[in-house]
């Protein structure tokens, strides 16, 4: 592990953030040929992940700087398929812009090298964090679609994206919770801890377990679903950022 983070890395991250934000805005405003614009940030994402992985010797999954980077990458990947399938490129533009913003935030978060203390040296850690961020990215897409539904600017494509994204998010989040439970059992001797972070993860899981049933109630589709997605993502954001920044951090490994 090197002692210092090269300044070039942080400047490239900022540059990639600004470029991705710009591409996202162009898509959101209705670019004529959306696919190349939507694909353009992917090589940047691959390069950033590879660079950071080379610096720290593990996937960028530990600490705020790395998880913001990974959140952005997940958002780019996760939002691409439904956009191509349902032709919801403006919505995709919002997701790409959000990924750019996440990278910009990552570039100002402390990029210190997080030591891989023994508890983190397991594939269960990677499985848990990666699944959680793939889930968060789906929930973010669901919330953006929910905002579009609430604004009354969306067609059936966006509503389909909304339902699918929340269901996919729930599936990935379940895998993340199961992975986290197995890891906690192996590392701490219990798969459930009465800590703030675990309680908030349960909040997110139970909330979305309820939310994915809403489409099965015909009278409840539409704006209510949109609002439920936005509220759900607010819970996700609090679980990810609020718990760490505002409450006593229970996810302390050292």
């Amino acid at each position, binding site marked *: 592990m090197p002692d210092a983070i090269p300044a070039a890395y942080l400047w490239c991250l900022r540059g990639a953030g600004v470029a991705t934000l710009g591409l996202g805005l162009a898509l959101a405003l209705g670019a004529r040929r959306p696919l190349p614009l939507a694909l353009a940030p992917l090589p940047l994402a691959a390069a950033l992940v590879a660079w950071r992985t080379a610096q720290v010797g593990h996937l960028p999954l530990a600490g705020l700087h790395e998880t913001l980077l990974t959140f952005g990458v997940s958002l780019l990947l996760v939002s691409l398929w*439904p956009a191509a399938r349902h032709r919801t490129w403006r919505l995709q533009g919002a997701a790409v812009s959000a990924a750019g913003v996440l990278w910009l935030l990552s570039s100002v978060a402390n990029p210190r090298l997080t030591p891989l203390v023994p508890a983190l040296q397991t594939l269960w850690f990677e499985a848990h964090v990666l699944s959680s961020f793939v889930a968060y990215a789906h929930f973010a897409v669901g919330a953006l679609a929910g905002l579009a539904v609430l604004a009354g600017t969306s067609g059936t494509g966006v509503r389909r994206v909304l339902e699918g994204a929340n269901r996919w998010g729930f599936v990935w989040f379940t895998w993340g919770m199961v992975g986290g439970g197995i890891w906690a059992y192996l590392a701490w001797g219990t*798969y459930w801890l009465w800590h703030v972070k675990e309680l*908030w993860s349960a909040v997110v899981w*139970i909330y979305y377990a309820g939310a994915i049933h809403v489409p099965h109630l015909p009278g409840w589709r539409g704006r209510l679903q949109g609002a439920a997605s936005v509220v759900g993502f607010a819970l996700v954001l609090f679980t990810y950022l609020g718990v760490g920044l505002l409450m006593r951090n229970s996810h302390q490994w050292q």
Partner: protein
Amino acid sequence: MLRLFSSLRTTIGLSLALVALAIWGSLEIQFRPGSYATIEDTILLPWLRARVGEDPRAASWVLAMMGVSALLCLNTAVCVVRRLAAHARSGRWPVRAVAAHLAHLGFLVVLAAHLHGSVSGFRSDGHQAFGGQSFSVTDRPEWRFDVGELTLELAPQGYPTLLRAQVTARQGEAVLAQGAVEVNRPLLVQGVAVYVKAVQPSVRGWGVLLPDGRAVTAEVGSPLPLPGGTLLVREWTQMGGRAIALRVEWRPASGGSRQEWVVPSPGSPLPIGPGLRWGEIVVDSLAIFDVRCDPGATMALVGSALLSLSLVPLVIRRTPGGRLAAGPGPVEVHESP
């Protein structure tokens, strides 16, 4: 009543109630941490029993969560049974619907397993041993855990990169299980798991040089008979830098006792008797172990696997053309029966 418990509206209401309770619980833990200081020390039932009398507010939301979860389980079970019955009557078993109900079953199994582990099982934490020593736990009095070689590796920055302890679990002389315990790798002995929580340098023993030049040694906590009385090192602490301070107790043969903190260096005189000097302070690796038994753990794993796997068909579904496609898409609309 049956209508209420087979309704999806009830499911959503109960989920929101659980969400509200968990948020309330997180605020409780955040702002009244003292009430929850021991919640991880035991399994849930003994903790709840103690709290109900002493601090009902701390127990209330946990009990309420258990109650609402029980209602949600009932709701889920009623739904599953009614829908499976409907499928049996119609003779149609769509993959997605079956998968959804396997997910429901997985959820029920996980909650049942958690209840099982919260009322039976035990936690016995904080056992300390140097290499070559043994420890035992009150919940398995016939067992003994022998600790072998201890390994601690540190990164140049000072944080640990490897903690390892060789442990052998014995009943009498029969070996029940043995192996290297590391962080993320407990030793499993008939449903009981042994975890290594720390391996750290610790004062194991100390020595005194007698006036005739002979050296005598003792472990921390055991008395050492010396000319004129008995000397005992009760505890130790690390001072700034590497210096070590000992709390010594001197019990003269004439009666009484005197305690004080000293910072010994080999060869320096002892403050108690003529001609006695400090010998070597022996620092060795000390391991700290937690021993835990959760009889619901395997069942929870099975339930989680069922839940996790049955979600796959829900997202990889057949498109109308019969082609397998992955990705978000519309769901079929089903009212609850």
